[in-house]
């Protein structure tokens, strides 16, 4: 036990400035974790959101209008179908043919643009995949995963339908089951 003292010990609480630091620190931690949790719970970008502008660099041979990069803002007035895929992604192969067919169907109208964003992939394997399915629509690597982070994709394949005014209208998580499914969405957006 402690020895008896001559005078009573000074009973001080925690100094105010220390308390302020502690509470601010705790609040900061909770806010940080809370916001991160919220982000994780959010899932992908949802229909109704305006998509900020982004630039997709394109593989050589897969250019659009002769340009080696494409900006979303350049495509305003057209329906944009953005498809995230990867060569190592097995489910992506299930929809590859249908996507190309849909592109062939809509390309002549000039009103619809299909974009392929290659997610975390290697170019040689990507080219093998594109050739295998005869894909011709503009395709390029999602450098630094910036675009996929923008859309908060949860995996591949995912396809985002953006209308003529740059607003997201439909999200397809996973491969399409049929060509008609793709066409239905595009026709809806074209008719507006």
């Amino acid at each position, binding site marked *: 036990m402690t020895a008896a003292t001559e005078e009573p010990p000074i009973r001080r*609480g925690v100094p105010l400035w220390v308390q302020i630091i502690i509470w601010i620190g705790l609040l900061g931690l*909770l806010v940080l*974790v809370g916001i991160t*949790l919220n982000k994780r719970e959010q899932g992908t970008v949802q229909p109704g959101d305006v998509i900020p502008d982004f630039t997709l660099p394109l593989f050589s041979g897969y250019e659009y209008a002769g340009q080696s990069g494409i900006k979303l803002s350049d495509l305003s007035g057209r329906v944009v179908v953005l498809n995230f895929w990867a060569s190592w992604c097995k489910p992506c192969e299930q929809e590859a043919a249908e996507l190309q067919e849909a592109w062939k169907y809509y390309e002549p109208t000039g009103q619809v643009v299909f974009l392929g964003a290659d997610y975390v992939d290697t170019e040689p394997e990507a080219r093998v995949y594109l050739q295998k399915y005869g894909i011709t629509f503009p395709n390029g690597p999602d450098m630094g995963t910036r675009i996929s982070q923008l859309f908060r994709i949860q995996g591949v394949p995912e396809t985002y339908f953006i209308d003529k005014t740059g607003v997201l209208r439909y999200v397809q998580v996973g491969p399409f089951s049929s060509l008609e499914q793709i066409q239905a969405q595009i026709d809806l957006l074209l008719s507006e």
Partner: protein
Amino acid sequence: MFAEFGYGVLVVTFVLALYSVGASIYGYFNKSAALIESARRSMLLTFPLLTLAAGVLIALLVRGDFQVQFVYEVTSKSMPTYLKVTAWWGGQSGSLLFWSWLMSAFASAVMLRKWNRDQEFLPWVIVVTGVTVAFFLLLNILFENPFARLFQTIDGNIAAYTFAPANSTPLVPADGRGLNPLLRHPGMVIHPPMLYLGFVSFIIPFAFAIAALVTGRTDDRWIRVTRRWTLWAWLFLSFGLVLGGRWAYDVLGWGGYWGWDPVEIAAFMPWLTGTAFLHSVMIQEKRGMLKQWNMVLIILTYALVIFGTFLTRSGVLSSVHAFAQSAIGPSFFVFIGVTFVVSIGLLIYRWADLRAEAEMKSMLSREALFLLNNLLFMSVLVVCFWGVIFPLISELFTGQKVTVGPPFYERANSPLFAGLMLLMAIAPLSAWGHSTVKTLGRAIWKPAIAALVITAITFFTYTRNWIALIGFFLVALTVLVTLYEFWRGARARQHLQDENFFTALARLTGRNRRRYGGYVIHISMMLMAIGILGIELFQSQTQGTLQVNESLELQGYKLVYKDIASWDDGNANVNHTRAVMEVYKNDQWLAELHPRTDYYFDSQQNMTLPGVRSTLGDDVYIILVDWEPASAIGATFKIYVNPLVNWLWIGSLAFLFGVIIAAWPDKDPEREMVRAGQRSRQNSAAD
């Protein structure tokens, strides 16, 4: 029906836990002993009830009732029974129930102790444990129901529901998905339970600390009551961590035992503060100091436990260890927020009452060195915490995701661990209250010289790596100093009591279990340090593709590829691919090893099991990386030579031994007095 019964038991237990909390609070403020007793009994009931619920779940798992979604997700027909039982903690909802069950076990055990001297603590211990049990049960009841069953509704949707929705038919899959192959290993059987035991048991010291703060009984009582709990909690946590490392080494096939993965670190952080607490609590007992700091440490330990659990289960951290995204995130977030705010608020409120006379005569006294020990542990904690949190900060402020990996942690923590090793060598020689450089110097110079000699020998025979040499020096110094303490004490006893040396040693340890148990633990940590130094600094690896009878060479070993075979094990739904490698050194045959890969058809996942030859000197560790049956390319092997790694496992066994010594109940002096009083009363009554 059966599953619904299990769910009902969960709900009843939840209500009971809430009742205990309410009755305790009401009973405390209205001074009603009867209400508090009622609260204690209902808290006691939670354990048998949860055992019942757990029993139902285990029965469903073993029976293979695949309509229950959890059973479908973690078991399959081909799994052996013991694995089906351990699948209880193989998924989020089951492991939450496991957690609640363990917590109620500890809560109930604490309810059973004699409360006569601690009446005022009881209501608040009930409140803390009751709120926590209720919260985890709430997660099961509302968000992750292990008893939810699969139904198909009229429009073709398949989902899991607690109760059968209208117009739906039960969906009973023919077979389950099966447990993740990585978890189908004896290590999986024991690592999570041990880890959860460690985490969960820290709630008891925390509950007593909160009770002490609330009631204002800020003297030593809460520490004395919970001392043994804390030691066992720390043992379980330590063992859980070591077993995780062993499992990673045996099964995950990357030749290592610790990856500085955020989830590993989340489990490591409470261990750091727990160890700091075990030491600084001794200062409070011996010198009455540091009451405030000990409160901070125990609250911090528990806070880190639940914070770590939250990070792992909510999906905030991405990791191979983490559970999949879950709906429990938001409510768990509220729970930890409330816990932190209440704990810190109480601590600040009572801060002044915790102040005690503090006096430090010497900067080298044992108290000062223990404080330095605390500073070092807290420093490691700061490094780890920052490394875990920073990616979240980076993502929030810059949108860029970064990884904080092993180089950061190793670089920052190595000097801190070295400092701790040095302290382990010096502190036993330092006295409570007073020590000077001279006294310490006199005590340490002999072991120091011996350690230098050992290091010099190591320098000439084993390695020139200066980091390793410093490490080995510190290991040798600590072991020598600690053994010297044993020797000195035993010799002293020998002289005094006229016993032979070994009796003296045994009695010495027996009468001073905490100190000498602690010394054994320190020695075991040094053995583990030898293993860690060996594998971290001297691991070598090579990879190559071989045809049959070709070989790879590494560190003097020659590994010859002899054969390979692939076959299906129909029963277990597994395809085994097993290679035969022969190990030679200096043209002498040493062993035949069988690295293999198992492919599980139900979960479509691979498991690589290394072939390992273990000696005290090193491990030869072979992984079969790749083999295409139809191709002529050959098989690809990766070979690791891990020097000294088995000292890590030897050290952990010694650690277990040390904790048993330290935690073995002494004759409680207070109980002795009571018994002596009773005996004398009986004697006088018999007159």
